[in-house]
């Protein structure tokens, strides 16, 4: 842990939004909007230097800060960043300004509180990704619930009360079991809450089983994995646009992040034992989510179910336990954040104009809103994993990793990609190219400057990551390789030299597209 920098970057990034939240409550409506935008942009700018300061050659935690918080039991305020949390941190700080921008005119009630709640959310989410103490992690993890509850419940749609309480209780019940598991780990792991120390420990087989189940309860609800996904469509549909974006882009990633940060390193034996059911659930989620998406008439709900499907790829990639799978999973997390975030932003912009999220009410937008249609199309194509867009990289890596594990699982998961093409293209056919619905034609204005500014950066990222995924992959590679030294997979005997296994992937990827998600060229040790 010699990568300690003197400047507390992470504390600054985590708590800057909180300061903004307090200030937002003290000012007038219009200033609250600008203030929130200013703080989120400033936070993003603060996190940007880390891109270059980050040392991608080491799996160790960087920018570490560690101060004693509670003396007995020893709980530390300790933060750090590695290749797995780093992309998620950037994703969060990147997306928040867009959440503010898209709420600029759509949120008119209690604007100051709304902005403050968003900023508090940002602090909690960033805290989750950088916490290196299990209790600190839990505090951030839970602290997020109340702001999200308010976000859905106060500024949400007609059925918001139900959706808000469902979201809250589902996630709380899972998280509380996690708390007991954390305490059990404390006593079996040498009386420490330090995540790195706990990751180095070894635990008995039956203890690992129980802990795995408790971790699973917390993380699977958050991802959400099938069959714990039922809160997601409700929450997505009812949440305001900013809430949906946060939910899809960041909140869901926390569950997957939990699996990567805790389950895999701490409970390697149980992870291997539970690999099959986990993969079965993931594949089920991929197909079920896609299948359900086909049947939706509400655009938001459709995207919500597509999220279930896409997050299935993430958990699939995690539990095949090889470098391609996990790097693909992290990529997929970032990509899903960008693409689905973009899609939700698009739906929000549309809803502001037509006040309906039904596909029937929003057909044929290509003529009245050409620019909007273009952006929507790009996000949609990215969502179905078109080569050249970002999602292709992640899904391809996950499928490549799965192929090493089981051909049948790969085939089934690939079915999800085909279904994705079906529901997305069908949606586009109706919404973009269908015959315009007469009810709304009169007042459909194309994107204004603010909305263009909201969508354009994400569109750029769709292509940048799609074509040059390497800078991102390089930064996560060392950490992922290090992570895999924990779980010993019986399936993949060549685990100790994962690079050798990875060889076929880059070649195939380069051949298939312009992208080269090379795990091979990553400059490791």
């Amino acid at each position, binding site marked *: 842990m010699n990568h300690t920098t003197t400047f507390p970057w992470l504390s600054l990034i985590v708590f800057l939004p909180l300061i903004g939240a307090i200030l937002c409550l003290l000012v007038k409506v219009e200033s609250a909007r600008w203030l929130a935008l200013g703080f989120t942009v400033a936070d993003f700018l603060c996190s940007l230097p880390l891109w270059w300061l980050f040392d991608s050659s080491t799996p160790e935690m960087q920018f570490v800060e560690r101060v004693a918080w*509670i*003396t*007995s*039991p020893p709980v530390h305020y300790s933060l750090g960043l590695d290749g797995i949390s780093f992309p998620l941190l950037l994703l969060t700080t990147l997306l928040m300004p867009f959440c503010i921008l898209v709420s600029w005119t759509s949120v008119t009630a*209690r604007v100051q*509180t709304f902005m403050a709640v968003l900023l508090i959310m940002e602090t909690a989410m960033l805290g989750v990704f950088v916490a290196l103490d299990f*209790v600190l992690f*839990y*505090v951030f993890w*839970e*602290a997020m*619930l*109340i702001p999200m*509850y*308010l976000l859905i*419940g*106060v500024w949400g749609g007609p059925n*918001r*009360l139900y959706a*808000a*309480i469902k979201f*809250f*209780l589902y996630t*709380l*019940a899972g998280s*509380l*079991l996690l*708390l*007991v598991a954390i*305490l*059990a780990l*404390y*006593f079996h792991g040498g009386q420490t809450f330090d995540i790195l120390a706990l990751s180095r420990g070894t635990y008995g087989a039956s203890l690992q089983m129980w802990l795995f189940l408790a971790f699973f309860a917390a993380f699977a609800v958050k991802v959400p994995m099938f069959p714990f996904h039922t809160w997601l469509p409700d929450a997505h549909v009812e949440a305001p646009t900013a809430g949906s974006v946060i939910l899809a882009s960041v909140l869901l990633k926390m569950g997957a992040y939990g699996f990567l940060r805790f389950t895999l390193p701490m409970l390697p034996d149980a992870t291997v034992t539970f690999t099959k059911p986990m993969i079965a659930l993931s594949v089920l989620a991929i197909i079920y989510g896609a299948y359900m998406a086909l049947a939706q008439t509400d655009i938001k709900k459709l995207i919500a179910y597509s999220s279930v499907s896409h997050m299935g790829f993430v958990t699939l990639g995690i539990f095949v336990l090889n470098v391609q799978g996990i790097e693909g999973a992290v990529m997929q997390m970032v990509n899903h954040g960008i693409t689905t975030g973009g899609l939700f932003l698009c739906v929000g912009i549309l809803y502001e104009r037509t006040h309906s999220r039904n596909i029937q009410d929003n057909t044929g937008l290509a003529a009245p809103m050409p620019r909007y249609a273009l952006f929507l199309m790009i996000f949609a194509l990215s969502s179905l994993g078109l080569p050249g867009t970002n999602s292709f990289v992640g899904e391809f890596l996950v499928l490549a990793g799965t192929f090493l594990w089981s051909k049948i699982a790969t085939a089934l998961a690939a079915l999800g990609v085909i279904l994705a093409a079906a529901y997305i293209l069908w949606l586009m056919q109706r919404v973009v190219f269908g015959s315009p619905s007469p009810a709304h034609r009169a007042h459909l204005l194309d994107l204004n400057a603010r909305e263009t500014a909201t969508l354009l950066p994400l569109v750029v990222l769709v292509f940048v990551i799609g074509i040059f995924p390497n800078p991102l992959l390089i930064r996560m590679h060392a950490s992922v390789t290090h992570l895999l030294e924990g779980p010993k997979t019986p399936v993949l005997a060549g685990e100790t030299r994962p690079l050798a296994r990875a060889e076929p992937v880059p070649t195939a990827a380069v051949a298939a597209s312009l992208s080269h998600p090379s795990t091979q060229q990553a400059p490791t040790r």
Partner: protein
Amino acid sequence: MTIPVQDLLAILPELVVIGTACLILVLDPILAASKKDLLAWLTLAALAVCLGLTSSQMTGRIFVFSDLVVIDAYASFWKLLLYIVTGLTVLLSLAYLKAERLNIGEYYGFILLSLAGMMVMVSGADLLTIYLGTELMSLSLYVMAGLKRTDARSLEASAKYFVLGAFSSGILLYGISLLFGLAGSTRLSVIADAIATQGTGHPLLSLALVLLAVGFGFKLAVVPFHMWTPDVYQGAPTSVTAFMAVASKAASFGAFLRVFVEGLGGVSADWSILFTVICLATLALGNLVAIVQTNIKRMLAYSSIAHAGYALIGVVVAGRQGGATASTGLASVLLYIAVYSFMTLGAFALVGMLRKEGQESETIEEYAGLAKREPLAAFFMLVFLVSLAGIPPTAGFIGKFYIFMAAVNGGMAWLAVVAVIFAAISAFYYLRIVMVMYMREPDGSTQSQSRLETSPALSFVLACALAGVVLLGLFPDSLWSLATHAAPLLK
């Protein structure tokens, strides 16, 4: 009989409290109605003096009055908590009594007398001392519960509380008498020795144990001895309810732990099973019945029952384990009750002062749209409720954290899992209030709507409670070290 001076010095805080109570009772008829506030300030002054006196009693362990009373850090922990809670109640009452037009000077006298009883309870080294303290506390509370003399529900609360309280005191006394028969003394140390030498097999010992558990069960309001709680909490003036829910519960836990750990520690295997059952029943009933309440005072009453259940987890752990594990279990109870005091007091303070046309807004429905009318009050309520639900970064989380930690440490992870499930259930009814406040509009716009009747005293109470909830949530170190300093003294 002469009383040694050092004995009197040791109980100086109790003497100050009782002396002030008597002074208030004398001053009350003399003072003009407009100057009754003076009595409250006098009470606060007495509490401040006691705070100083007790702070100096945090070290050592002295037995005074031929071993009837013990002054140690454990007693001081509870006393300090009681002073703070009483002080806040007095300030709350200052606002509340005015709003309710209850200009009764002796109110403060009763609070102090009740406090004196509580102090005797937590300092008692002899079952009879503890019993006397319990009675002094309860008798004052019976009167205070019925102070709204024109309100039938207040009178009902008083009568109900009195009948059931007297009944439980009788049971407690019966248990004490059986123990006296077995051990030849009511002194806790002698009883402990007797159990150690005579063994634990005597059937009368088990009977005495059960009777004591029942007697204290009433005071702690744990299931199945909780029946009086909702009615009394609902009917009593809200400032009195707050005092009962917080101070009386704290003092009862203080005495209860001392009796069972210090006096009956030898049969802890028996009582830990008994309390496991009571704990589970309390958690289940408290949390489940709270869901269906429509009156916020009743809901908070069931919530306070449920919280006693969480605290009992620490007691169970202390009963099953020895040594350091037991001490941590007890310390977690101390911490939990302290944390519980702040959030419950804060919630009741708001309930008492949210009023509509001079009446308290008691139904949850009346909280609709509060976030728009009174954003600050709604935010305070939000924090207290979130803390009651045990969600970080509030003190309620820290309380549960230490309790669950004690349970896992004591090899009772299953109990922690059960408690956790009920904690998730409890979030439902706490959040329902948040939902009503933030996400609903009041039906019928013609009616006048409830607002917070603010006053400097109330603001101070709320600020203190909020500070307690937030600061203890972020920096629990000092409270935890106090609790771990106090808890090992039992044994």
